[in-house]
């Protein structure tokens, strides 16, 4: 999760908002004008109801929208799709059930890609939400316990006939703003939900789909990070590229996990590129004899090795070469092998090469992998090509 940058998170929520909106379009195509009127009316209630004095603050406006449109539907009796047409509603408590699938490798291969994507996205959204709640309440949370808790909850959900879930940003904010702080608030929301659903089953069937579409459009608008569009001109190019690539990949593949993976990969590449540009090699003459002093500053690794190699002048006729590594850090085998190359090339030109001031980590790496001080170093270097 530490590798998921803010740009990836912004891209993630924007893509999520777009996908939720797109998922509503089937409900809005090939329908009568009644559905459009209902949806528009629903959106009107959702956004205008909170401005009513007193009562506007008391009831959540999406709920008012659903109740109002359901009542209108039942009174007027127009023929539009309702929740009852979409499938079965619960009439009892959920029961413990082992999923009816063959327990073999074939099943595992079918579900594993989905489960891994669900696990990643679920944890990502939960960690994001936990951070938001931490900020809102000014209290710390136990992220590791939350990960395990999400896992236990999903195992339980699967065995009780439910679909995988995770923390919800919108609902958590509603909870905090309504005064919920402790574990009891989450428990209560679940218990009240089932209570209402089981006892209102018949009423739920009458909810027109148009009302749900209006609520989902509101969820989509609320999820989208509008400030990311406003700030797109000020933000650095790399940050925009990461954010927009995440959005495009998700919208194209319909898979949030792929989008996050691409975003993380891109931001790591950009970061490696930036750090590699911070590596410089300064060159000075050595005072006493005919010699040259090179001072290496910065991080030497796979992305900066190329420019490291080209910073040295191998054709200059000097006797002594001093390479000062006090301000440098060698990170990987690529950088060590490129240092080998530099040392051996200078020695081939007949110069004495001295490496000074390596830090502990660099020294360990060079002890382990460098060949320039070993016998037949030159042949080794040649044979490796």
């Amino acid at each position, binding site marked *: 999760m530490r590798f998921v940058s803010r740009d990836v998170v912004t891209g993630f929520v924007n893509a*999520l908002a777009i996908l939720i909106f797109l998922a509503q379009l089937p409900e809005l195509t090939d329908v009568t004008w009644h559905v459009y009127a209902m949806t528009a009316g629903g959106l009107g209630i959702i956004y205008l109801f909170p401005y009513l004095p007193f009562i506007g603050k008391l009831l959540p406006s999406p709920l008012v929208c659903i109740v109002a449109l359901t009542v209108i539907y039942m009174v007027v009796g127009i023929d539009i799709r309702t929740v009852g047409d979409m499938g079965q509603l619960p009439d009892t408590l959920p029961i413990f059930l082992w999923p009816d699938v063959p327990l073999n490798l074939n099943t595992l291969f079918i579900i594993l890609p989905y489960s891994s994507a669900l696990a990643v996205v679920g944890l990502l959204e939960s960690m994001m939400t936990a951070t938001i709640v931490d900020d809102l309440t000014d209290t710390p949370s*136990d992220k590791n316990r939350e*990960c395990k808790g999400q896992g236990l909850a999903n195992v339980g959900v699967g065995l009780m006939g439910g679909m995988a879930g995770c923390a919800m940003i919108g609902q*958590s904010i509603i909870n905090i703003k309504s005064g919920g702080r402790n574990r009891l608030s989450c428990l209560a929301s679940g218990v009240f939900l089932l209570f209402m659903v089981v006892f209102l089953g018949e009423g739920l069937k009458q909810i027109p789909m148009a009302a749900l579409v209006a609520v989902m459009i509101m969820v989509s608008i609320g999820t989208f990070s509008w400030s990311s569009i406003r700030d797109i001109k000020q933000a650095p190019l790399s940050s925009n590229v990461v954010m927009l690539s995440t959005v495009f990949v998700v919208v194209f593949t319909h898979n949030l996990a792929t989008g996050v993976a691409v975003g993380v990969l891109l931001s790591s590449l950009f970061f490696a590129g930036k750090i590699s540009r911070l590596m410089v090699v300064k060159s000075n003459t050595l005072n006493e004899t005919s010699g040259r002093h090179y001072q290496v500053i910065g991080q030497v690794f796979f992305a900066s090795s190329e420019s490291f190699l080209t910073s040295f002048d191998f054709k200059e006729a000097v006797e002594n070469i001093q390479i000062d590594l006090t301000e440098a850090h060698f990170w990987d085998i690529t950088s060590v092998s490129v240092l080998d190359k530099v040392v051996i090339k200078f020695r081939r030109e007949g110069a004495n090469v001295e490496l000074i001031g390596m830090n502990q980590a660099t020294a360990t790496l060079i002890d382990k992998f460098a060949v320039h001080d070993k016998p037949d170093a030159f042949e080794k270097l040649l044979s490796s090509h």
Partner: protein
Amino acid sequence: MLQKIKKEWFSNTRSDLLAGIVVALALIPEAIAFSIIAGVDPKVGLYASFCMAVIISFTGGRAGMISAATGAMALLMVTLVKEHGLEYLLAATVLTGLLQIITG
């Protein structure tokens, strides 16, 4: 121990219960809509939201955070449900949980 339970659960009872009702009311339409996105019966999302909220209130690490069926997760299930059906979705949900426990 008893003190801790009291503090974690019952130090804000009235507000917690009221907020719970508001959240439950807001959860119902979303749970139904997310089930429809995933392509399963509304009861699958409603059961999910109930179980998720109840279990995470005991096992979670962030008090006051609400977990339930979500759009992000529903969007990932669409093809699995279309090609293999509900039972495979339930199995995938259990496996998702196991993977998350290992990560945690």
